[in-house]
């Protein structure tokens, strides 16, 4: 028995004791193949999944290394069956390879004819295949490259894609590092992606994913299509690219509801891509009409299903996924793996915080008591109205008012789900509101004013959940949310994580009604962040009024 920092559980989770002297070393060693599931303060939990092990294989790690690492750092003896299982799982990756062939176009090659025999007999695979070339090779319809990768993954025989990428139309892009420097982890991420060909980079909100995108573009040096969640994000990408790269305004186009520009670097929104006209996706052609050398998917955890389907058809183009979390509430992680690519880079939030690249944050749950009357109407509300009712109680308003007053000198965001509640708050607080129907121009004006400090407080609806860059926001007050969505909570915290000039701690308040489902949802929402090491402190509304927090 060694005294290592790692405990290997029989259910394939790895527990890493962070207080152990070897923990950093061990974390580095296991990071390539184990997925970080939770990183609270003392023991981090990693999980060995098939996808994770295949990710590691894709990155060139072999089973022996994985097993050696586990044995080396393990505190207790590692169950033998687990090791056998790891070796077996990892050996499944790469037995099938997709390769380019001068005669047949795309071919599926195997080192193990048994496996090939098995897969070509599978119902889902057979239609995707062409002629059998020899015992170990079979032709694949080039158009089915994505489809076959997806289907093979489901069968448990993930194919390694060596078919290469089209270069796309070359376009000179360089990073313009004047007055700023790319951070080391951003560089690693971009390199990890480029060497892998395609894949996903996981970085916390505020850690500069845009720069990773820009760096990737500078590596690929080709025309690029960037898919983002909404128009605001599109503008921010453009601004950021102008600032960080040699690209000029003429080279960057926006393809959204408002504009339809196609330029060497085009930024399109998911919304416009998935818009249906007469029952067909009218804008999906965008993928095809241009010879893109790189496609960047921002917030890949939100990628809508139609885009997946289309992505399957463009497997010969380099793809980069950017996200803060691979948690998909719909469980389509496998699709991300097979269609966008394996995870190429990941680092715990707290580590980046420790490096000072994202602001330290304090999460506070403020519990308000409903008044007797409110309790009564809550109790009698229809079940589907209950959350809305308790999330928007008037009692919350007083607390928000008090909090805003308390943080008078700071840049404060008040975030909520329900428009009437936000209208009400905006009125009470006397601050502007940004919601879905706020015109684009007005939004930009308000955000700009907020950035310059002209406005110190903004009330925003869920339109500001993603990709809105508000570096100076230090306080977020969440009054209601999309039920128990974990990733929304993470995104909202992300709004205030940009490092502050004076190194101040950001504060994230979540105002919750006590003893209602609001509280239950809050618990669920907090789970992701708690697992990322953000511990919540619970305070009472009365403490707020007395200034004791």
């Amino acid at each position: 028995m060694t005294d290592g920092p790692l405990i290997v559980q029989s259910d394939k989770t790895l527990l890493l004791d962070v207080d152990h002297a070897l923990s950093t070393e061990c974390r580095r060693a296991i990071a390539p193949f184990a997925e970080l599931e939770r990183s609270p303060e003392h023991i981090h939990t990693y999980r060995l999944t098939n996808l994770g092990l295949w990710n590691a294989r894709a990155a060139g790690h072999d089973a022996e290394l994985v097993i050696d690492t586990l044995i080396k750092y393990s505190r207790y003896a590692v169950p033998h069956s687990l090791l056998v299982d790891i070796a077996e799982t990892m050996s499944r990756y790469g037995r099938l390879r997709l390769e380019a062939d001068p005669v047949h176009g795309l071919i599926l090659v195997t080192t193990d004819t048994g496996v090939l025999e098995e897969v070509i007999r599978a119902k889902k695979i057979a239609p995707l295949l062409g002629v059998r070339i020899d015992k170990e090779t079979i032709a694949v319809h080039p158009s089915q490259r994505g489809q076959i990768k997806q289907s093979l993954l489901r069968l448990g025989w993930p194919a390694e894609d060596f078919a290469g990428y089209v270069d796309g139309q070359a376009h000179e892009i360089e990073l313009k590092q004047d007055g700023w420097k790319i951070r080391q982890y951003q560089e690693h991420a971009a390199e990890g992606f480029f060497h892998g060909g395609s894949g996903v980079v996981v970085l916390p909100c505020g850690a500069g994913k845009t720069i990773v995108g820009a760096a990737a573009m500078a590596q690929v040096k080709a025309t690029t299509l960037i898919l983002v969640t909404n128009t605001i994000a599109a503008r921010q990408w453009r601004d950021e690219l102008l600032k960080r790269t040699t690209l000029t305004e003429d080279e960057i186009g926006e393809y959204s509801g408002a504009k339809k520009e196609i330029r060497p670097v085009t930024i399109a929104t998911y919304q416009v891509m998935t818009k249906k006209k007469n029952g067909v996706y009218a804008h999906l052609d965008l993928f095809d009409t241009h010879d893109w050398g790189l496609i960047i998917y921002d917030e890949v955890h939100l990628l809508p299903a139609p885009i997946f389907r289309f992505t399957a058809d463009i497997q010969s183009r380099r793809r980069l996924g950017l996200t803060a979390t691979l948690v998909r509430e719909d469980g389509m992680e496998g699709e991300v793996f097979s269609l966008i690519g394996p995870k190429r880079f990941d680092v715990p939030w707290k580590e980046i915080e420790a490096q000072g690249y994202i602001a330290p944050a304090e999460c506070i749950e403020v519990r308000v008591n409903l008044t007797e009357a409110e309790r009564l109407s809550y109790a009698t509300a229809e079940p589907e109205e209950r959350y809305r009712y308790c999330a928007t109680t008037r009692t919350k308003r007083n607390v928000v008012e008090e909090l805003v007053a308390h943080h008078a000198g700071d840049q404060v965001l008040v975030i909520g789900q329900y428009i009437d509640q936000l209208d009400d708050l905006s009125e009470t607080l006397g601050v502007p509101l940004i919601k879905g129907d706020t015109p684009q121009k007005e939004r930009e004006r308000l955000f700009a004013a907020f950035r310059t400090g002209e406005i110190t407080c903004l009330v925003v609806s869920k339109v500001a959940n993603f990709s809105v860059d508000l570096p100076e926001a230090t306080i977020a007050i969440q009054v209601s949310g999309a039920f128990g969505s974990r990733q929304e909570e993470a995104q909202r915290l992300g709004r205030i994580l940009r490092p502050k000039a004076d190194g101040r701690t950001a504060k994230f308040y979540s105002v919750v009604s006590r003893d209602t489902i609001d509280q239950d949802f809050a618990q669920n929402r907090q789970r992701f962040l708690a697992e990322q090491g953000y511990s919540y402190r619970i305070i009472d509304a009365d403490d707020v009024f007395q200034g004791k927090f």
Partner: protein
Amino acid sequence: MEIRSFADYLRGLDDAALISIFTYRPDLVTPVPPDIASLAARASSAPSLARAIDALNQWQLHVLEVCVILDEPFSEKEVAALTDKSALFVIPGLIERGLLYADKDGLRSPTTLKDVLGNEIAGLGPASMAKLKLKKLDEVPAASKKVLDAMVWGPPRGTIGDIKKPGAGVQWLLDEGFLIPFNQQTVVLPREVAIYLRGNKVHRAIATSQPSVEGVKRDSRNVQLASIANISTFLRWTEEILNFWAQEPASALRSGGLGVRDLKEISLHLGVDESCAAFIAEVSYLAGLLTIDPDDRILPTHQFDIWLMQSPSARWLTLVSAWYASSRLSGLVGRESSKNVAPLGPELDRSSAASTRRLTLSLLNENSEIAPDIDSLFSSALWLAPLKRSGGLQKDYISFTVREAEWLGITGQGVISRYGADFLAGGDCESINGDLPKPVDHILIQSDNTAIAPGPLEHEVAQELALIADVESRGGATVFRFSESSIRRGLDHGRTGEEISKFLAKTSKTPMPQPLEYLIADVAKKHGKLRVGNTASFIRCEDSTLITQILGDKRLDVLGLRKIAPEVLICGHDAAEAMNILRSCGYLPAGEDSRGLLLSGPRIQRAQTKARPPRVIGEYDRLDEGQIESALRALRTGEKSSRKQSTMRNIATEALGSLPRTTANETLDLLSDYLQNQPSKSLSIGYADNNGLVSHRIIDPLKLSAGSLIARDHATGEVQTFRIARITGVAAL
């Protein structure tokens, strides 16, 4: 002394030789035979010989077969000629076992041995009667050669169309006497011919030594580590499976054993495959830690509680020894060919299971450096035990043993561990206690509402934690998750919120995160807010002063009132009774039904059950002539037969003496008559016992009840119950 028989030979043996026979063949002296003649009889009996042969290895068996083929008496040289020179070293061993014996002419074998070894030993036919010119076999015609080639390695019988018109090849052989006609369609190859053709040998290949066991070499340190991991895992599995069933007992199938669904459930619970889950259950069953109770529930026994208190080595030994000696094979569960075989069921017994297991483990023990592969293990085992009765040696059984030994931790990474070797040597395996990871007594609570025990937890702590948290991950460490429902479970078990917090604060090495404190406080606050109970009736009144007054009224103490709300009392008596008592004390209660409706006035009630009118006794319908006539006829016949009976009875009574005879009805009438009119009169009765023997009793009748007479028997002076049907007659004294 001249040796004329096996018995004579045995008589001539000295003590040492006899002791050696008994050592090899313990069945010869259990029980001890009365004399040498019966010892000889037993030693040459088929079962005993079969047992002795079972213990032979491949090479010994080959030599023995050759000995049996040779005509008696034979010499060692002859044996060696047909086998190998080294047979000379084997023969003494066979003699020591009493499978061969020597007389003045040479070696002999007990007569039954031939039968035990079978008819066509080594595929050889009977000896030819005639003198054969074997040299001719060297120039055999091509057609005949084909026939010989087909028959030489046995079976020695060949089927032909018709013995009268054989093919040319067969004809030549028949002519030369190299084939013997057996019947119309069968010819036999004589032994001498076959042996000649086999190159003056009997067996195709002679394996004079045990094939070596091949396998992968493993680092011995890793073997120990893997083995200790297996041991701790298996102990944990056993504990978990039994704790699981202690909470939700599985029910046994009607045909016995554990159902597929329950098996799936435990395999899911433990996170192991079904064959492993079946094995864990089976071993616990063998060790007596669980049983199937009369209600067909599968439950842990008290033995389990005792087991839990023992040291890990003792716990492990209990399990391993039970498995080692068992004739049950849990590996048979869930195979295609044996779908209906359930773990814990009656169909897992295989007679060769235990011996195969012993053999496999001893092979593992001998090759303690390597993880043997199954094929070489099998061929080695086959050499050691070529003649296993009941289906022979099964490769499957060997692979089951290897797999199970790994689960149990007898092996680690397929190589026998120190603990396994110690167990096989009969040791106490106490080194396990020191090598197992030390139990920890603390946990680490984290802000995501999980607690982690960074090692095996001490039993008490683990039990307490299991009460208030759900286990999320098992292994060397345990991850617990606190949730509303898990905290509630703790509260349901009688813990208070404060106790839970205190326990966690004491057990945790890290400070308690605030959200968890809140969670516990929140649940504790809500827990038990709603109360549910049973009551017979309630009294409610909107005027709480009246309620207080009723509660204070001494006259109403009988009602056992309890106040559960300012306006509600509950009462142990039913509503009607409570109302009567209240009324009698001057209150004016009104009844209320379960829906809160006022029951005003005397209720008009309806029965809730179906109508069942009573039997009617009254005027009878007038009968028609036919009915009357047939009634009369029946009556007359009855009378006749009864008179006949009575006559017969009188005759019988006279013959039997003074025993009274009455029919059951008469008896009943007489008895009730006596009881009513002459209660103190003694009576004489005949009473039949269980076997139908009638005895005469003098009794004082006391009471008639439920077909029995209760009376004082004069003979015993005790009050006794007599069944009316058994009373053959009654008469006054």
